[in-house]
């Protein structure tokens, strides 16, 4: 089980073929082999949410998933969501509200927030807090993040009305 295994997947819309050790987790694969360093590693055991990415449309902790498990999958990282403009409004709201300080949790926060807003158009503050409860932020105290997501939901709601 120590020999590299071939995997083939799509990352941010690009086809990637790679040889990975079976023990390599997805976070390290993205950061070290693909140089997608926007995905951060905080706790390394699925508690802090800094490494949150999307696999086949669902958010996952990339530190708890092995790279070999993504064979044939579609993976999206903060770089992909930023380049496509999918979270541009969320990012603008974070900027206006100063919903980040050191920024280390922010990619994971944006991933989790976008996941919530896709599921639920108008979450209340308690629901937002609940959905983000697996994403640790030491800097902000969370309130600015909740505000920014609430604002984005409101603006998006107006857009589709």
């Amino acid at each position, binding site marked *: 089980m120590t020999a590299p295994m071939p995997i083939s997947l799509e990352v941010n819309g690009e086809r990637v073929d790679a040889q990975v*050790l079976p*023990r*390599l987790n997805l976070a390290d694969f993205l*950061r*070290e082999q693909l140089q*997608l*360093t*926007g*995905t*951060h*590693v*905080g*706790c*390394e*055991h699925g*508690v*802090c949410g*800094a490494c949150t990415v999307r696999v086949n449309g669902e958010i996952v902790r990339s530190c708890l998933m092995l790279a070999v498990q993504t064979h044939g999958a579609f993976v999206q*990282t*903060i*770089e992909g969501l*930023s380049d496509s403009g999918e979270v541009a409004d969320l*990012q603008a709201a*974070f*900027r*206006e*509200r*100063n919903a*980040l*300080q*050191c*920024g*280390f*949790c*922010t*990619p994971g926060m*944006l991933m989790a927030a976008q996941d919530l807003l896709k599921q639920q158009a108008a979450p209340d*503050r308690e629901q*937002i*807090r*609940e959905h*983000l*409860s*697996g*994403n*640790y*932020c*030491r*800097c*902000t*105290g*969370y*309130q*600015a*993040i*909740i505000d920014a997501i609430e604002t984005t939901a409101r603006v998006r709601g107006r857009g589709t009305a």
Partner: protein
Amino acid sequence: MTITSSNPEILSELDRPNSYIGKSVPRPNLERLMQGRGLYVSDMELPRMGHVVFLRSPHAHARIAGIDVAATKGVPGVIAVVTGKELAAVITPWVGVLSHLKGLKSAPQHAIAIDRVCWQGEAVAAIVATSRAVAEDAAEIVRVDYEELEAVTDMRTALDPATPVIHPALGDNLAFERNLDAGEVDAAFASSDAVVEADFIFGRHTGVTLEPRSVVADWNAAEARLTIYQGTQAPHMVQNIAALHLGLEESQVRVVCKDVGGSFGIKVHIYADEMATYALSKLLRRPIKFVADRVESFNTDIHARDHRCRGRIGVKRDGIITAFEIDDLTGIGPYSMYPRTSAIEANQVVNLVGGPYVTRNYRARARVVFQNKNVMCQYRAVGHPIACSVTEGLVDLAAAKIGMDPVEIRRRNLIADDAYPCASPSGLRFELLSHHAAMNKLMAMMDYDALRAEQATLRNKGIYRGIGIASFIEVTNPSAAFYGVGGAKISSQDGVAIRLDAQGSVICQTSITEQGQGSESLTAQIVGSVLGVSMERVRVILGDTDNTPYGGGTWASRGAGIGGEAALQAAKILRKNILDVAAAILQSSPNELDISGNAIVNAGDGVLRMELRELARIVYFRPDTLPPGIQPELMATRHFVPREYPFAFTNGVQASWLEVDTDTGFVKLLRHWVVEDCGTLINPQLVDEQIRGGVVQGLGAALFEKCVYDERGQLTNANMADYLVPMSGEMPDIDVGHVVSPTSETELGAKGAGEAGTAGAAAAVANAANDALGPFGAVITEIPLTPQIILKALGRI
């Protein structure tokens, strides 16, 4: 203050119509962080870079009988395995003492342990490999023979004759003791109508920065120069220390600080494993990267607040406080941390207890003892949460004893707003505080009377809610009194250099650093305001010892007050220089001109005379067209350090509103209020967010955070699943209000705001919990307020 007096004009720039001062403008460069395009040290890769993993002691105290690295020889990818003895050839040990902390002692500490380990987690060998994974594999096949020694873990018995002395050469386990006796304490207690005593116990906790400590050290043997990429708050301090212990000149060391994933005081110290990484790079002549994993972070990032403090308060029937007395004991691990020392926190506790109040009678003893646990040192709000919790806990106990409302007793004892300048019994000098104005504002914000009525109504329904109040003072803008006078080469001054570039934009180099507080923003706001240039055209460079003026960095709530003032003074000089050139070009006088909207305008009617871009073009490319004798100087540098007051004290008051479930012992935080006074608000939003983030760090200490050691010195919860931190679900919304009392020591008038939130949050929560439990007669003076502690106090378990 020669710099100030050499400035030609009284400041008016900050009040101009287009000023950014006092405006909540977004911080520059947030996009980089939001798009995953930041550059944290953990993201860095250099050619030929090796990754180091430290093999760490599983024992709290043990003799190293032998280290056998033979099995690692020839393992593919392993570059070197280095022991402490081998590394000592390139790096000298250090002792974490400062001369102004009289009597403070500590033992020499090595980058990697030699012969003996003194806490669980101390490094015993370094394994360098082509990847972290390979190095971790190799670490598993290094054999270390330990002879376990008795571990000193309980601070209460550390000084007992029967307890082993951790460093025999020091004679005992007492690192530092300070005694203070001011006023007539015994007489004051004797004349009191009531005297209340309590033991306050604080859980040892830590910073849990989301990005662990990280460093890449790159010794270029061909240049004889070491470049250190590190997430640090104090680059010049790191430069000084690295050079000192590696036998280099400071000019041979460059420290570069890119994005930093949280700091809070954790990254303002010099850690043994970081020193080892610098030394390994020199030894192995290649870049070496160290990124702590989460378990290592818990075992080696400084801990803080492990205090037991007996407090005593005397009070008259009319609520007048007669005296405070404390006896504080704290255990700091086996070494005083380098170079800021581990005596500062206890020293601060002695300084700050009773700080908001009038009484002159105050006695204190603080003892700092060694233990075989991880090192403790300065973490956000150093000493403040201890001092505030003890003081405010005692004040509430006194109020309860004489049957007075907690707000009323504070109003009768807080220093009057018109009593300044004045000094505390411990000798702290207060320039201008606003305790009463802050309290009045807080009362209005929280609608105190209505909340009390609601509390009473709910109690009848068996719902137990409490209100907790905590007044506090905060040390900010430290002068050389903090470290410099004790011999530490940690600068208390900061410098800013500003220049107009060839297209009329501004480049600004500052010695303060950014970890997300908004150093870059406040610098750009000040410079933009003074120069009349829009913020988008101000580029701020920080965190690089090769490319910024010399200075202290960002810690102890000093960035805005000290670095901001340097930026202001430098911008004023550049502004004058620009106007001199403009007057020469326009055949006008500098007094008749102003800069606004990136252009030279008439001071009187604001009519556009010349874009800055055009001025820069002439200066840089067509100086031949300038009148004779004009030598434009479109770059200016100024430094600043407070000289009149050793510290710029700020003040504030917090309130917590919470509910205690008396069946389960769980606390639900419902709301939190803060009113604070940091002087001039440069960016109100950033100040509010510093306060909120600080409060939540204090709430973590109040309810969740504790490093749990067993009696053998084993840290039993060194991971984020078992060590609880505040998450979004449990945190309340926090309302922040301000009173503004600018310091007159600077033109800017800004004091610090980074630690106010953390200073008083736990005290407010503890007082609120006791208020909620009032009907049961339960009094708790221990944090974190776990369900177990609450149920015990209620007699349920």
